[in-house]
């Protein structure tokens, strides 16, 4: 007899049955059911340790089940599974006590491990063996909870509308000239909840075409008064895709610099959603995952005939339902009808995306230069219709409107957007997105990539309004995405596996002869290598190679010599790991494997003709030496060159002979310091930053290159910024674990960047969005 039992709730038979099979095999007792209502019945009479529940269920949603479980059977550990993840539902699930949130599809092992871990955390006495079966409750008004699904008679909608209309402006879909528009509902009969799509989105009542931000006084002391619209409003009959669009607007306007005008409207707006059961011919909402929603509404209606199913999404919504309707628990038949209607509607959308929407950012990124943008935008009128009907567009212009007495003004904002010719034009006349194709591409990139990357929510909800509004018939995002996807597929087909040029020696090191070994300090040596026939390594200063010791492994080592000193190359190496220990033990004449060079190296092109401030801390001098040598060898191509070097103590100084040569060399200004001196040391004592104040810096023509330990970067960067250097003028070389050197293994990644490809040399400006960097 298995010790623990698991209840699986999912309306998809295939999911339910697979989980049952996996877990039964793993030794659990498993029960399954397809609705939340049944699940809640089952937990009243049977003892379960773990609940595995899908978020999207017909009738009671997964979240509602969690809530009920939390209240009635708090000892049951719940695991949420979903194919439609969102941060809102994840947070909510956590709040309601879910121990984890698994994305479908998942591996059997993952679920099993999760259940094992979950059960390991349960004290054995927490569960109870039998529970008394309670008497079926009457559907009383106080039973109306948030995230519950209830049934009301259609006639109840009228009392709901009338109750709302008594104290707020109710806006909803109405018929107009054969189309539907959102406007003020004066009589309940005007409401058309069976609409396909409206000409303009309901989001317009949250970010109107034109609104006043401030009132201003002209002349004298400037005075500005914010203007906020607090009038109560109800959006009655919003389709799920439009609700999801409002959720994006919330993200845009309510995070980082929250927008007072938007927030005031949003707080005073109730959203009553309605399931879209008659999709428009231009909609592709299911492809964007927006044809249904579990969040973003106060109430969500599904018209299933004489009955309307209502899901509560907020306290406000639950209160409305109990106040104005005779809501009751839905019966099994109603729950089944709701699911059947929703499923049938989902099949009715004629347009769809041919790839997963998660792939859009990368797909677009790879096709920035595709001829498609030029071809497709040829007939663009730049009329802005596509962006003026879009529920997820939110860009605007701000301008002043002055009263005729010239004493006062209002500062208003009105819709503006990237498809209009002058959107990116500045006063001097330069238009930064001048061409039709540039604007066209920008819009599609916003919809499929930029907005998603910036706000975490995809920038198109698939409502299809732009498709209807575009006269030349070119605005469709789904058409753009699919065309690009097909081109990508065609390109991939052309790149047939057999036709890719094979590089069998990609991972094979080339033998180089160790011609000289010289100790630098207690633990550091410099190794000079030569290829057969003195073949050049072909590197740039700042690049690295992989050093291979057969049987031990490979390690990335920066090149310490300049390519200007040809015929051989030098690697200065601290004895710190297995590969370096083996190398330190090698004798002159040995053959050592070398792969590379790899990485970008120092940007010589942007350093030339500038003043250079080179700063090395400790063995940071190893990579920087390649640049110092290069600069000395091509001295006429650089302005004033200052080299600062800091070591922890005199005995840890490396390349001592060269240090004293540089000191004597009048071509470069050389300063060094040690953190701690000794009896023999006569030079500077102090950390490296103490050298910087004395350095002469002309910020306009100086580039700084810093190489050293991470802690040094922070202080030196602070000091250089004080001296007026911008992020673009500060260059760093970063150390990471470059295992393969060819952008595959992933060890060297900083956020999304592969250091072995785009690095190891970066400007501070490039590192700004790489939070893992310094």
């Amino acid at each position, binding site marked *: 007899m298995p010790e623990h039992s698991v209840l699986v709730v999912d309306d998809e038979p295939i999911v339910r049955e697979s989980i049952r099979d996996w877990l039964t095999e793993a030794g659990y007792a498993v029960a399954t059911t397809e609705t939340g209502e049944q699940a809640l019945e089952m937990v009243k009479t049977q003892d379960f340790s773990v609940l595995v529940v899908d978020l999207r269920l017909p009738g009671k949603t997964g979240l509602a089940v969690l809530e009920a479980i939390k209240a009635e059977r708090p000892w049951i550990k719940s695991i949420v599974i979903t194919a439609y993840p969102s941060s809102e539902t994840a947070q909510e699930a956590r709040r309601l006590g879910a121990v984890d949130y698994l994305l479908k599809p998942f591996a059997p092992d993952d679920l099993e491990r999760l259940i094992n871990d979950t059960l390991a955390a349960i004290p054995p006495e927490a569960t109870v063996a039998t529970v008394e079966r309670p008497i079926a409750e009457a559907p009383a008004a106080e039973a109306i909870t948030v995230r519950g699904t209830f049934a009301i008679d259609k006639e109840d909608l009228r009392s709901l509308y009338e109750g709302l209309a008594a104290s707020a402006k109710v806006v909803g879909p109405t018929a*107009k*000239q*054969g*189309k539907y*528009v959102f*406007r003020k509902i004066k009589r309940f009969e005007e409401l058309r909840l069976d609409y396909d799509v409206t*000409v*303009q989105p309901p989001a*317009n009542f949250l970010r109107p*075409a*034109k609104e006043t931000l401030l009132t201003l006084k*002209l002349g004298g002391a400037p005075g500005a008064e914010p203007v906020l619209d607090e009038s109560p409003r109800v959006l009655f009959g919003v389709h799920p895709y439009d609700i999801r669009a409002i959720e994006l607007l919330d993200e845009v306007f309510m995070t980082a610099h929250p927008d007072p005008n938007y927030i005031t409207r949003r707080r005073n707006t109730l959203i009553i959603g309605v399931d879209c059961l008659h999709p428009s011919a231009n909609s592709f909402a299911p492809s964007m995952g927006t044809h249904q929603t579990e969040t973003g509404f106060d109430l969500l209606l599904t018209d299933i005939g004489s009955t309307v199913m209502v899901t509560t999404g907020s306290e406000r919504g639950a209160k409305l339902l109990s106040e104005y309707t005779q809501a009751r628990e839905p019966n099994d038949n109603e729950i089944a009808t709701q699911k059947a209607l929703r499923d049938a509607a989902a099949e009715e959308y004629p347009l769809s995306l041919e790839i997963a929407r998660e792939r859009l950012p990368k797909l677009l990124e790879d096709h920035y230069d595709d001829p498609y943008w030029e071809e497709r935008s*040829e*007939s*663009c*009128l*730049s*009329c*802005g*219709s596509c962006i*003026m*009907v879009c529920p997820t567009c939110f860009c605007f212009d701000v301008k002043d*409107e*002055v*009263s*005729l*007495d*010239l004493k006062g003004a209002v500062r208003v904002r*009105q*819709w503006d957007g990237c498809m*209009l*010719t*002058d959107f990116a034009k500045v006063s001097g006349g330069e238009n930064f997105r001048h061409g*039709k194709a540039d604007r066209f591409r920008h819009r599609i990139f916003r919809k499929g990539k930029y907005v998603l990357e910036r706000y975490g929510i995809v920038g198109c909800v698939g409502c299809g309004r732009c498709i*209807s*509004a575009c*006269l*030349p018939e070119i605005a469709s995002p789904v058409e753009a995405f699919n065309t690009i996807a097909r081109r990508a597929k065609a390109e991939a087909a052309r790149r047939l596996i057999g036709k890719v040029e094979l590089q069998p020696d990609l991972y094979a090191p080339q033998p180089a002869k160790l011609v000289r070994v010289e100790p630098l300090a207690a633990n550091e040596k410099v190794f000079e290598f030569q290829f057969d026939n003195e073949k050049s390594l072909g590197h740039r200063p700042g690049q690295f190679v992989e050093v291979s010791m057969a049987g031990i492994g490979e390690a990335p080592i920066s090149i310490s010599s300049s390519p200007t000193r040809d015929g051989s190359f030098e690697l200065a190496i601290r004895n710190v790991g297995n590969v370096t220990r083996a190398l330190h033990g090698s004798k002159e004449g040995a053959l050592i494997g070398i792969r590379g060079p790899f990485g970008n190296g120092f940007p010589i092109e942007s350093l030339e003709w500038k003043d250079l401030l080179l700063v090395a801390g400790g063995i940071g001098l190893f990579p920087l030496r390649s640049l110092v040598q290069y600069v000395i060898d091509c001295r006429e191509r650089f302005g004033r060159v200052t080299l600062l070097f800091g070591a922890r103590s005199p005995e840890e100084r490396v390349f001592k002979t060269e240090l004293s040569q540089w000191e004597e060399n009048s071509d470069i200004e050389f300063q060094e310091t040690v953190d701690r001196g000794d009896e023999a040391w006569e030079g500077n004592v102090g950390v490296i930053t103490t050298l910087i104040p004395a350095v002469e810096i002309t910020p306009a023509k100086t580039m700084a290159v810093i190489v050293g330990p991470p802690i040094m970067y922070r202080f030196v960067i602070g000091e250089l910024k004080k001296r007026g250097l911008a992020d673009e003028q500060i260059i760093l070389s970063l150390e990471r674990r470059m295992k393969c050197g060819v952008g595959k293994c992933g060890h060297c990644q900083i956020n999304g960047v592969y250091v072995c490809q785009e690095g190891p040399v970066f400007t501070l400006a490039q590192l700004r969005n790489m939070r893992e960097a310094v």
Partner: protein
Amino acid sequence: MSKPKVAFFDFTCCEGCQLDTLNIQGEELVDLLEAVDIVEFREVASGKAESYDIAFVEGSITRESEIPRLKKIRERAKIVIALGACAHIGGVNCLKNHLAMDEALKIVYGECAKDYDTIPTRPIDAVVPVDYVVPGCPINTGEFLRIVKELLLGKTPELPTYPVCVECKMAGNICVFELGKTCLGPVTRAGCNAICVTAGRHCWGCRGLVDEPNLNAQHDILEKHGLSVEEVLEKFKIYNTCTTEEKK
């Protein structure tokens, strides 16, 4: 600072735009009259002045005798503003440019044609330099007032560079094309708040074309919606004979 001297003049036109400035109501009119000194306005008063800070010129140039008169106004005015479609783009008067001039005279005046002279219609900027424009047939008084206020504040008045579609969508209108009719909104400069479409009609293009009109695309769209090439050209003729000629 003394109040700027403003004058109104008309050439070949219906004087509807000047009439519209007179339709400015109540307090706004009082404020306007307080802000400026109207020194010439034939529809209101008979005064004459030697110089003007702002001269509003309505009407197009259709007779030789109008040319020296317009030039004199230009000499006396610091700022010349074209008022309405006739002054701005020639307006409906341009329709006669599709005919030979003596034929046009004969159609209009019949037997008396020999008593009149006429030349092909020109907007005023074809004769003198024009500083700013209040477009439209008739003008939008809100836009007229905005331009006056901006000049009084030392701000350069600018017209929208986007087409009527933008304002039409802002007004929440259903597209004329979706209703099975045709419209010049996609290539016509906005600033009228899409008044014609909002009122249930379509755009005739009275405010002239946007700076970068995609006329090929617009022609294709009109044809796709059932217009013949001749009908398409006819659409543009009403107000945009002069502007489309320039673009050719």
